[in-house]
C-alpha cells in the first residue's frame, strides 16, 4: 500500500497542483481510509468537465422520473408536472456543446399508492431542477442532452444481472419503478462524492455537496420504500442485491486496470450483522449503501471516479481490452455522453 501511495505521491510531486487535484485526492482518500476502492481519473478535467459529466447524468435521471411520474420527457410542458413545480415551458435540452439527442422508451407508472406516486413526483421535480441548475451554472459551457435510451436499455441491464431478468422493465408496477430508481440513485451519490474533491472552485464544491446530499436523500427514500414494500425480502430485495453486485462488478472492472482493491463497493438491501458497543452482534437493515467492513470504510459511502460511473451507465462499454476507451456508448447512453473538448473516459 505504501508503495502505491509513494508512486502516486511521486506523480503528484512531478506534475504539480492540477495532477494533485485530479489524481491525488481520490487516490489518497482511498489510502487514508485504508485502501478501499478508490480509482482515479487519469484525465485532467476542468470544473466545467466535471459539472457537464454530472449534467449528463441529471438528464438521464430527470427523464426517467418525468416519464415515470408524468408520462413525458423533461422538455415537454405537462400540466401535472407544472402543477408540481416544473417550468411552464418545459426544461431546455439544447446546450452550447453538442446536439440535443432524443429519449427513447419510458411510460407513466400505473401508481397504486399515495406513497410511491408522491415520491416519484417529488423526485422528478428535484432532478429537473438539478438539470436547470447545472445548465445555469455552466452557462455557455453547458452540454446539450445526449441521446438517452430508457426503453430497451432496461432489458440489456436485466440480462446482465445474476440471476438474469431479460424482460425487466421499470414501468409496469410501483415495485418495478422503485427498482429502476434504485439503479440510478446510489450511482448518483457515488458520482457526486467522487467529483467533490476534483472541483477547484469553492462555490462549485458547495453546490456539488448540496446535490450529493439530495441524491443521498433520494437513494435513502428509494431503499426505505423498497424495504417497506417487500418486508419478507423475497421479491424486490433480491433484485437490489443483483443490481448492486452488477454495479460493483462494473466499477471494479475499471479499478482493476489500476490495481485497486477489488472488494465490492456496493450493497443491496439484504440485512447484515453489526457489532454495537458492548459487544452485541445484531441484525441491521442496509438503508445506507456503504460497506460493513469497518476495517476499511467505517460506514462511509463510496466515491466513484467518472470512469467507474461511465462504465456502469454504459454497461461496461468504457473499459475494453484492458484499457479505458472513449467514447463509451451503450445501455442508457447509446451515442455516449455529450462532452466538452476533453471527452470522458
Amino acid at each position: 500500500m505504501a508503495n502505491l501511495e509513494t508512486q502516486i505521491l511521486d506523480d503528484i510531486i512531478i506534475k504539480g497542483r492540477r495532477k494533485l487535484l485530479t489524481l491525488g485526492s481520490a487516490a489518497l482518500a482511498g489510502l487514508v481510509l485504508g485502501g478501499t476502492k478508490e480509482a482515479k481519473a487519469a484525465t485532467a478535467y476542468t470544473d466545467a468537465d466535471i459539472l457537464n459529466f454530472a449534467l449528463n447524468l441529471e438528464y438521464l435521471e430527470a427523464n426517467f422520473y418525468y416519464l415515470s411520474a408524468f408520462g413525458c420527457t423533461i422538455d415537454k410542458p405537462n400540466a401535472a408536472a407544472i402543477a408540481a413545480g416544473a417550468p411552464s415551458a418545459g426544461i431546455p435540452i439544447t446546450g452550447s456543446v453538442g446536439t440535443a439527442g432524443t429519449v427513447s422508451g419510458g411510460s407513466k407508472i400505473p401508481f397504486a399508492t399515495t406513497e410511491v406516486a408522491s415520491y416519484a413526483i417529488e423526485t422528478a421535480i428535484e432532478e429537473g431542477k438539478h438539470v436547470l441548475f447545472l445548465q445555469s451554472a455552466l452557462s455557455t459551457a453547458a452540454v446539450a442532452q445526449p441521446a438517452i435510451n430508457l426503453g430497451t436499455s432496461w432489458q440489456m441491464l436485466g440480462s446482465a444481472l445474476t440471476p438474469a431478468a431479460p424482460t425487466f422493465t421499470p414501468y409496469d408496477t410501483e415495485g418495478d419503478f422503485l427498482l429502476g430508481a434504485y439503479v440510478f440513485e446510489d450511482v448518483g451519490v457515488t458520482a457526486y462524492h467522487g467529483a467533490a474533491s476534483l472541483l477547484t472552485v469553492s462555490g462549485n464544491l458547495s453546490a456539488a455537496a448540496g446535490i450529493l446530499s439530495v441524491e443521498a436523500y433520494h437513494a435513502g427514500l428509494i431503499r426505505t420504500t423498497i424495504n417497506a414494500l417487500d418486508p419478507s425480502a423475497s421479491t424486490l430485495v433480491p433484485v437490489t442485491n443483483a443490481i448492486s453486485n452488477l454495479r460493483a462488478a462494473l466499477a471494479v472492472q475499471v479499478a482493476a486496470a489500476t490495481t485497486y482493491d477489488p472488494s465490492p463497493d456496493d450493497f443491496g438491501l439484504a440485512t447484515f450483522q453489526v457489532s454495537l458497543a458492548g459487544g452485541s452482534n445484531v441484525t441491521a437493515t442496509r438503508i445506507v449503501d456503504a460497506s460493513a467492513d469497518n476495517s476499511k470504510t467505517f460506514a462511509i459511502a463510496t466515491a466513484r471516479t467518472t470512469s467507474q460511473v461511465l462504465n456502469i451507465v454504459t454497461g461496461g462499454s468504457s473499459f475494453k481490452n484492458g484499457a479505458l476507451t472513449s467514447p463509451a456508448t451503450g445501455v442508457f447512453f447509446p451515442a455516449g455522453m455529450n462532452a466538452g473538448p476533453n471527452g470522458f473516459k
Partner: protein
Amino acid sequence: MDTKLNSLIDKALSRRNFLAGAGSVAAVGLMAGCADDNTTTTGSSGGTGAYTDADVLNFALNLEYLEAQFYLYAATGHGLEATDTAAPSGYTGTYTMGSVTTNSSVTQVGGGITAAQQQIVNEIAYEEQEHVRFLRSALGAAAVPMPAIDLTFFAPLASLASGGALTAFSPFASFDAFLVGAFIFEDVGVTAYAGAAPLISAAGVASGYLTAAAGILAVEAYHAAYIRTAITAGAIQAGSAAAFPYITYANDVATLRNTLTVGNNSAAPGMGTGNTGAPGSSTSCEVPLALPTGLTTASSIVAADSKTAIGFARTVNQVHHIVYGSATVGAKSGGFFPNGTNSIFATTTA
C-alpha cells in the same frame, strides 16, 4: 497560488519520505500521520478566527458523539464504549471527557418495537458509532474526548417546539417517538457536513479529508431520508396528521430549528442559504414534511432549496445554536451539550 502549490508539494514530499521510510503502515498509524498536516494549515471564516483541519473534524466529532450516544442507547440501552470516548493516547489538548446524562426514560426503544424496526435502529446506531471511530482514527492524538452530553434534553426541546403542548416527550418511548428524536439530528448532520466541507484546506483535500467528509455527509442524508420517509409514510397510512401526530411534532422541530438560527445567516458562499423566513420559504434552511393525498401531489422527503433542489448548508454557529437550544449569540453551552462542545467553535459568534 504558487506559494500554495509549493507548500502542497512540500507536504507531498514529506509524506512520501515518511511513507518510504515507514514501509507498510497500518491504516490507523497512517491516518494519525496525516493529522500532522493540520498543525500548519490554517484558514479563517467570518467571525470564528483561525482554525485547522483538525478543528473542523473535531467539530464533526462532537456531533457524532451526540448522535452515536442517542442511537446506541435507543438500540441497546447503553452508550459508546469508554475506548471510543476518552482522550486518545498522546492527547495534549485541554478538553476533558464528560459524561452522559440519562434518566429512567433513556432506554432501549420500547412501546412494542417490531423486529424490522429494531433493525433500522441497529443500522443507524452502528453507522454513527463507526463515524466516531473513523474521526478519532483520522485525528489520531488530536481527537478531542467526548464532551458532556445530556440525553434528557429531548423533553424540554419538545416542550419548546410544541409551545408547551408536549410535556414529557421521550424519543425512547416508542418507535414513532424515536423517529421524531432522530429527525432532530439528521437534517442538522447533513447541513453541518455540507457547511464544513468547504472549510477543509487544500492540504486536507489532498489528505482525503474532504472525500471522507462528503462520504459521511452522504450517510447522514441516507439516514435523514429514512427518517423523513418513515414519518411521511406513517402519516399517509394513518390518513391524517391528527391520526399520526409525529409528523406535526417533526415539523414543530423544524420550525424550532429555524427559529433558533434566525438572523445568523452567513454571507459566505454556500454557507447558510437562509434562515430568515418560515420553513419552506425561499429564505429558510428548513423544509417541513408534507402529507400527500391522492396520486397527484408531491411528498417532501428531501430538505433542499426550493428553486435549485440543492441541499442546505449550515455554519458552525447555526449548528451550535440548534444543539444548544439557544438563539442567543454568545451562547457556549446548553441543550444536548450542558458544558458546550469540545471545539474551538463552541462559543457562538453570530
